[in-house]
């Protein structure tokens, strides 16, 4: 089985962001990067499915060649090769432009199974996975917490608001990975050594232009300062009073 795991480099989730001097972009000072939280699950699932069914795992990222440390980590965790679609503006691309660039490469690679994160933790789009599937004509199940592949078909459980949904589909398919799908492994020393010899190649991205303009980027307004109404159970009446008469939620 040919498996592609799509991985995005994003700022770490503890970032306290600043707005750049143009008032439209993310200030770059102090940003540390990591593989997006759910993309770690995509890589783990790719490796697990390969261990079960055989095949090959390619990690694919639209990004900059200067940021390949994260891709080496994916190779150390069991992926076979990594491809960076080189685009210096990767972090500014809209979701459709990103999906088109990735889809073109996936088509060329020819995948049976494409795994993406449920959402990238930078722009919170949750769009690229289902967009890839739509562009490629593949099946797609989003927010997946359990995946079973059997020959050329599969079933996936999806975490929905009312409960858990089960979907049946045929390969090729795009699966977007929710947290409970798996627990990503740590790269062992052996994996780290092996990763050094695995191919990490650069390819041209051909990303189409964005279809929107950023007008402004701002820090959200601060919440008005609150107060401690008291200590221990004795403060309960004061809280009830505040909820009823100030917040008007009781």
């Amino acid at each position, binding site marked *: 089985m040919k498996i592609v795991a799509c991985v995005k480099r994003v700022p770490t*989730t503890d970032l306290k*962001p600043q707005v750049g001097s143009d008032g439209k972009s*993310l200030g770059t000072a102090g940003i540390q990067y990591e593989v997006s939280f759910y993309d770690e699950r995509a890589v783990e699932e790719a490796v697990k499915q390969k261990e079960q069914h055989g095949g090959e795992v390619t990690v694919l990222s639209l990004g900059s060649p200067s940021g390949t440390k994260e891709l080496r980590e994916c190779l150390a965790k069991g992926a076979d090769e990594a491809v960076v679609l080189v685009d210096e503006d990767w972090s500014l691309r809209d979701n459709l432009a990103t999906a088109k660039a990735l889809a073109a490469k996936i088509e060329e690679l020819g995948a049976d199974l494409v795994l993406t994160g449920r959402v990238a*933790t930078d722009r919170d789009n949750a769009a690229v996975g289902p967009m890839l599937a739509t562009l490629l004509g593949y099946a797609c199940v989003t927010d997946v917490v359990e995946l079973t592949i059997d020959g050329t078909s599969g079933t996936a459980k999806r975490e929905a608001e009312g409960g858990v949904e089960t979907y049946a589909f045929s390969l090729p398919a795009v699966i977007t990975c929710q947290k409970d799908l798996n627990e990503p492994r740590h790269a062992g020393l052996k994996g780290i050594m092996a990763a050094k010899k695995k191919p990490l190649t650069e390819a041209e991205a051909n990303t189409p232009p964005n279809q929107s303009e950023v007008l402004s980027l701002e820090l*959200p307004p601060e919440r008005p300062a609150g107060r*401690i109404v008291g200590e221990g159970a004795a403060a*309960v009446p004061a809280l009830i009073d505040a909820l009823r008469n100030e917040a008007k939620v009781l």
Partner: protein
Amino acid sequence: MTTILVLVEHQNGVAKRASLEALGAANALGGTTVAVLFGAGAADAAKTLGAARALTVDLDAWSPDRAAATIAEAIAAHSATGFLAASTSTGRDVAPRVAALCDVPLYSDCTALAAGANGVEITRPWLAGKLIAKLAPSSAIVVATLRRNCFALAEEGAPEVESLAPVGEPKATLTNVEAKAGGKLDVAEAAVVVSGGRGMKEPEHFHLIEELAAAFGNAAVGASRAVVDAGWRPHAEQVGQTGKTVSPQLYIAVGISGAIQHLAGMKTSATIVAINKDADAPIFKLADFGIVGDAFEILPALTEAVKAARAEG
């Protein structure tokens, strides 16, 4: 005159509140609003919608790709310039596919839409709400999902209801739904959320959180990542950057320290209450009202007091 299509989700023949907000947002932009409803009960749910027209689509089995193909064809047929859906699990599943079929990007989880001189102006959070972005689409069609509790509900109306045949062959089909035990409210939908963290000490103690939630009547239980990772609570209850984003009328955080990733998921709640034994816990910086003290002492008293207050009416 522009036309905007809106996905209206419904249950037992009644439209979901979040979808009525999406209809309200479309109506506020002016032009003609066309609701699209799928599956059994669609015709009933459509009757009183505040839209000029309602398209009901009979799908024998739910398939997000088929729904998207049907919507995209309806967008073309109506020469629509927009498609809106609530940012629910269904809306978020269908909308990116519609966007790709229309060859435009998706604007997810928008908190405001404004009609400007050069088309709509979109407001949406980035980095889990740590930044607010304003965007001007340049495409002919705008596809967006809308965050709950950010848009006024559409008023009732009497749309012209028309049935529409679904398009295409399904690529993925829904075969089963395991409903949540006891039909519990989802954290993302509830008007009141009571969340517990590591300060609850043991999973067995969460009955105190559940009882407070039950006292409010319309509340759901939430959790911090620490207790989800520990296996005390299901991930479906996790609030935060790698869980759910919630924006209820009232959010009560009990034994939760207030890590940046947790705050990202709940800081737009209308009112925030924190209960924590550590007066310096970061959660108090965000809370409107706080009680410093032991959750095990405070929760039973608060539960009784909420019951009494609600009984008084």
